[in-house]
């Protein structure tokens, strides 16, 4: 067991700093909602969902009972003053209950966006690609569909090309589950993903009913590799909900929703032009290798998740407040043999998410404040086919996130400011190897963006963001370490055990046609690098960094009339 080095009086000072951070977090910050599944790569520039987390809260495809491990210190997203509406709060926008869309949709909005981005550098996890280029198209919006119904929808197409070798042979190697497949013949890959999701709700007087359906499909394949690799994912999801206006007042709504997701992932490795060694990771110990030469390897991964949640929204003294809670469970099975009723390796998790959000406008709507605090906790266990009912891996994970978003209009200026913090606690125990990793991390981030109208149609915006990642805890240090631990498992643990700092900046130009559309062009740059030395022998090298850029172009559309 290896503990992260601290200074001589580090214990007491660290505890004080920790207490201070908790206090600050409890008051100010907010959590970032779960990101789309295909945003689990190693981006540097924030994903399109960041900065508009409220737009994704209703997504039926948001991970359930899963806390994906993101790149430490991903820079804070900008308020996106010129390309996104101001954040909203409500049963639909915060708790993700589709029934409330009809009562909370307000004025419709839609956008089309295309993004080209790139990231590369040596500050990365072993299963990350060294360099990636991404093309993405996104269309989303919501609108009334008649007098008593409304609909929202989103479609995104995402293509990533990793020119450097990728060793992960699954689409999501950084989830809570320790069951991951990798092979040593890393190859350049192209990942194509599409996600389509929609929500509709109908108002029936005091009650509203709603449903959201979504589908995530992905295909990843190697590019001209001696050991071709094909990975496919098909993941449908659904959420149904009901919302009720509390009798006697129009200011209080209560709602309940239930979600279901199913993901089927098939992994194929074909050693037709070379050899490779496949590992089915299940924790921190060296998994037995499977040597493939002139053979095929196929693995089927099926995941099913369910969730149920309740929420209430109230308008109190001009402030909209939403409190929400959700319990979720997930089970995942990995099977290899193509026979009836094959044995499987299994992962199961139970999750709890709850939080509160509030929004209020001041100064005749010139100043808008929006804040959210969200906590997500998860417990999960893994069992292997050969281990029977014996738990081989257990995880306890806890994430507390907070965010405050403020934006102010002083014509011709608009100012936006976001501060966020995340406390992430992960205890992951490999009971077969007797190894435990305990990593507690703190991420604090801030971003500011200022926009100005230039003439009648043109607006320009400039934004800067910074984030800091500070971990503490201990990671296993087996003696002697196996080759798998040295090459893949240990470096990832050390990666999360190392301080990091990230910066980002954006520049945006928007052209309002004074008609039905606003066209925009946005460029974003970002970098993340370890802060100081790692302290772990397998940690990132001194001077390592990862940089990236993104260019987005698109249009936001106003509803007809």
């Amino acid at each position: 067991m290896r503990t992260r080095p601290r200074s001589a009086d580090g214990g007491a000072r660290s505890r004080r700093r920790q207490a201070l951070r908790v206090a600050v977090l409890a008051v100010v910050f907010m959590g970032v909602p779960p990101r789309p599944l295909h945003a689990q790569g190693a981006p540097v520039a924030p994903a399109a969902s960041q900065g508009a987390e409220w737009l994704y809260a209703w997504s039926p495809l948001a991970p359930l009972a899963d806390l994906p491990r993101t790149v430490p210190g991903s820079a804070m997203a900008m308020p996106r003053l010129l390309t996104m509406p101001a954040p909203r709060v409500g049963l639909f926008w915060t708790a993700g209950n589709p029934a409330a869309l009809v009562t909370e949709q307000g004025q419709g909005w839609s956008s089309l966006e295309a993004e080209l981005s790139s990231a590369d550098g040596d500050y990365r996890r072993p299963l990350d690609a060294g360099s990636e280029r991404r093309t993405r198209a996104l269309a989303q919006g919501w609108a009334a569909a008649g007098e008593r119904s409304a609909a929202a929808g989103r479609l995104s197409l995402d293509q990533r090309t990793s020119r450097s070798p990728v060793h992960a042979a699954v689409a999501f190697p950084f989830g809570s589950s320790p069951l991951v497949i990798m092979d040593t013949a890393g190859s350049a890959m192209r990942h194509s993903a599409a996600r389509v999701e929609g929500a509709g709700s109908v108002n029936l007087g005091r009650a509203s009913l709603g449903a959201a359906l979504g589908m995530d499909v992905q295909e990843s394949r190697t590019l001209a590799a001696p050991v071709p690799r094909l990975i496919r994912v098909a993941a449908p999801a659904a959420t149904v909900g009901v919302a009720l206006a509390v009798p006697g007042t129009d200011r209080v709504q209560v709602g309940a929703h239930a979600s279901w997701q199913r993901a089927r992932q098939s992994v194929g490795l074909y050693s037709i032009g070379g050899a490779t060694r496949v590992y089915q990771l299940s924790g921190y110990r060296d998994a037995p290798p499977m040597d493939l030469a002139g053979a095929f390897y196929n693995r089927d991964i099926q995941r099913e998740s369910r969730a149920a949640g309740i929420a209430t929204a109230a308008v109190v003294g001009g402030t909209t407040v939403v409190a929400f809670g959700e319990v979720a469970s997930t089970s995942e099975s990995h099977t290899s043999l193509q026979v009836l009723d094959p044995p499987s390796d299994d992962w199961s998790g139970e999750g709890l998410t709850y939080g509160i959000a509030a929004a209020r406008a001041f100064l005749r709507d010139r100043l808008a404040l929006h804040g959210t605090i969200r906590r997500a906790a998860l417990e999960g266990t893994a069992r292997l086919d050969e281990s029977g009912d014996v738990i081989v891996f257990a995880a306890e994970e806890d994430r507390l996130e907070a965010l405050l978003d403020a934006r102010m209009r002083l014509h011709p200026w608009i100012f936006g400011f976001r501060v966020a913090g995340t406390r992430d606690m992960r205890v992951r125990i490999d009971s077969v190897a007797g190894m435990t990793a305990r990593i507690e991390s703190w991420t604090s981030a801030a971003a500011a963006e200022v926009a100005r109208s230039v003439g009648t149609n043109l607006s320009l915006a400039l934004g800067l963001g910074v984030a800091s990642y500070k971990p503490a805890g201990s990671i296993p240090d087996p003696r002697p370490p196996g080759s798998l631990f040295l090459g893949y498992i240990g470096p990832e643990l050390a990666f999360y055990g190392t301080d990091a700092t990230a910066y980002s900046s954006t520049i945006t130009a928007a052209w309002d046609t004074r008609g039905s559309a606003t066209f925009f062009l946005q460029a974003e740059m970002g970098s993340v690098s370890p802060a100081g030395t790692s302290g772990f022998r397998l940690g990132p090298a001194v001077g390592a960094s990862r940089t990236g850029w993104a260019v987005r172009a698109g249009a936001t559309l106003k509803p007809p009339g």
Partner: protein
Amino acid sequence: MMARSCPWRSLVMVLVAGLVGLASAPSRSFAQVAVTGRVVEARTGAPIAGAAVSVEGTQITVVSDTAGRYLLVRVPPGPQTLRAERLGFAVTRLGINVPARGTIEQVLRMAETPLALEGIMVTADVAGRARGELGTASVVGADAIRERTAATLAGVLELVPGMQLQAPGLEAIAQVGLRSAPTSGTTALGGGTTAADLASFGTLVVLDGIPLSNNANLQSLGARAELTFATAAGGGVDVRRIPAASLERVEVIRGVPSARYGDLTQGAIVVDTRTAAIAPEFLARYDPRSGELATVGGWAFANGGQAASFTFDAARTRTQPGLSDDHARRLAGQLAHRVTLGVQERLTMDTRLEAFLLDDDRPENSNVRVGRASWTRERGLRLSERARLDLPFDARLVLTGSYSRVEQNAYATSPRLRGAEPFTDRTTEGRAEGRFVMGRYDAEVNVDGVPQMIYSRLELAAERGWGGWQHELRAGSELRREWNAGAGYQFDMEFPPQATFNAVQGYDRPRRFDAVPPLAHSAFYIDDRLTRTLAGDVVLNLQAGLRVDMLHEAEWWLSGARDSRVQPRLNAELMPLSWLRLRAGWGAVAKLPTLGQLHPAPQYHDVVNVNWFANDPAERLAILTTFIKDPTNPQLGFARATKAEAGFELALPDGFIQLVGFSDRVSGGISLRQDLEFVLRDRYQLSDSTLGTGVPPRIVEPATRTDTIPVLVGRPDNLVMQRNRGLELIALLPQIRPIRTRLELQAVWMRSRLESDGYFHGRADRFSTFQLNETIPRTPYWLAGIEEGERVMATYRVVHHQPSLGFVVTAAIQHNIHDRQRDRTAVDTLAFEGFVTRAAERVPVPPEARGAPEYQDLRVPRGNTLIEPRSAPADWLATVQVSKTLPLSGRLSFWAFNVMDNPGEYAGPNTQRRVYPRMRFGLELSASTGAFGRLLP
């Protein structure tokens, strides 16, 4: 079978007499049903002037006035589809139920995009009729075609009952067969003919009024080839050449077609491409494997007297991305011009020039297929002209002519490894000294053909009331000549690409296709569709026709008939109530043989007389005698079939139910009959055979003995019978208004039976051993087997439509309920029918004698058949498509095929595995410039 007379003469007389009678008969009023109303803009309600309003499947067309008003008269009773078209607007189609008498009012709403219209039809229209047809048909209109994310015509045909769902792309040759279930393909019917080949071969595809033909496609390597490449020869037309983006309307006549359509046994697919004035539209489709760009546009000029249009499509599909560089690509385009001439614009001339390029490239993959590669390329050109002259008395004369030419090139290479085998390249009969082929070499083969066709149709059509019936009469003639040219089947004789290039199974020499005689075909037909309202407003529709097809003896149509077929056809429909239609049909149909079947390649048998292989090449000696067997069958004629169906249709207030039972019998389907013949093998003594002399030995004349080698000559013959029976159910349920969702169910039960009156001679290795070993006196033979296939499948389509949002979700679930294949052949060791002697005679053995000790050597397993029935487990496949309008008449669609990535069910103890193509997904973006036009002042 042979009909040397010309029965069309009497038919022509009947035809002429009928037309004269019709023209001279007084017209009587009939069915004064009128449909009137206004054409308005869907969102604003503003009137739309100049919209063409018509009743689909009829000639009834009017143009709305400045107030948007229209009036259609003499509309046939029953379910009909109104259609409104105007430049800049999406075509509006609206189903109505027309009573036997009276006037009905109907408002037609038009919008820029069909997604914004109520009642958009994104599935096949079962209530609609194929134009001029009374038989059961599925009509896929422009809206449904636009809503399909299909790369080819095959993708659009998914909307037809019995068709499998598929991802858009160009991966595999797409041949369409109607109303047949797959069979095992195991029982050696000869020549590799399968039920699927026969079904697709017998399905007629008509593109813009002119048949597409695969009859002159000779791009085949034959049964003796070791190398392979993708080819559509022997089956139906490869419809990958037809981009879905260019389609305007597809009619699939599943039932008995009218006498207008020939050269088919299964049904007809009538395809109209987009033409005339169309605001330019652009389409882009992308998925991780495929990309496609398409555009279409057209302009009217000269005060509307002329119109010109174009379509262009470029598509590419990688068939195994990540594993190989195999890919297919297509370029297709069409230019069209229409001009209206003459007094009162009576003459309309339509000219079209169509071109396409279709590549299927499978390059060498150094990891998997070392030294193996193949490609095929088709470059086609078709020029057609259709002249329509409107005559007095509601008559019209239509003359259609076309010339089409397709350059087909194919190449394959593969390494071969041979032991030392004697070999000759002699192309005439006789004995000659040969050489030895041995070791490893790269075999290569090129097949270059240029199938061409000239086609013409002259048709006179008239609509008259006569004898209390409303008649729609058509009479016409077709002339067709098909031939092939080009270098043909070519390879280096030193490096043979065939499995056994010597002796027993025959050998194919290089062959030029321009030496193959053309095929000449003519046909005459008369067809009358009669409508009458009986007592109690009961409406009776009849369609009676007679067609005569002739296959000519020589190269042109003036030569005598090699074979002819008289094909009566009758469809009847009774509508006792306005919402109920009872229908039945029966007809005879016929399909031409292909050029390859009429003129098969000669079969060469090179008998080895001396095989002296010494280490010193100079001392080797090979003597071979070449025999040439001509497999031509002068008796070969049309494949014949009868089609019968009966069913009913229920028109619901906002839906439709159709149930049809059918029974199709193909007799005289063409396959290879394995005729027994023999060749003589002379054996010689050698002199001067001492090794080390540096010279080969010499043979001593005369031959010391002669034995016979029985050989099988694959001769095309009308020996296959196929029977297809089934039920088709289509239920389009009313829309559930609160959730704006509609369900369509298509369920099909089909059973196919394929049999042959030929013989089966056992596994190839056993028969070849018998051929070469003169000590084996006989070998058993069997009757050809019977293959049966049964399929039950249901396709559920859920359509959710939000017109106000311009939003449509279509989810299709195809449930493969039952798939079973069975061979009805005796498989025990007493199943042999008799034996073949060395003199190439078949000697039958009575069943009661087959157990006798003297037949011990004949009691061997038959092989090549299913001993137990084979079935696949029930499973389902789901696809989904989401479409949303974009500004300026744009549309964005997301589609996912096999959205659950269902690989299929694993095999159980008594089942075969069901394999589904894996998940695919992509985007389609389309836009029209029509919206820009409306934005202009």
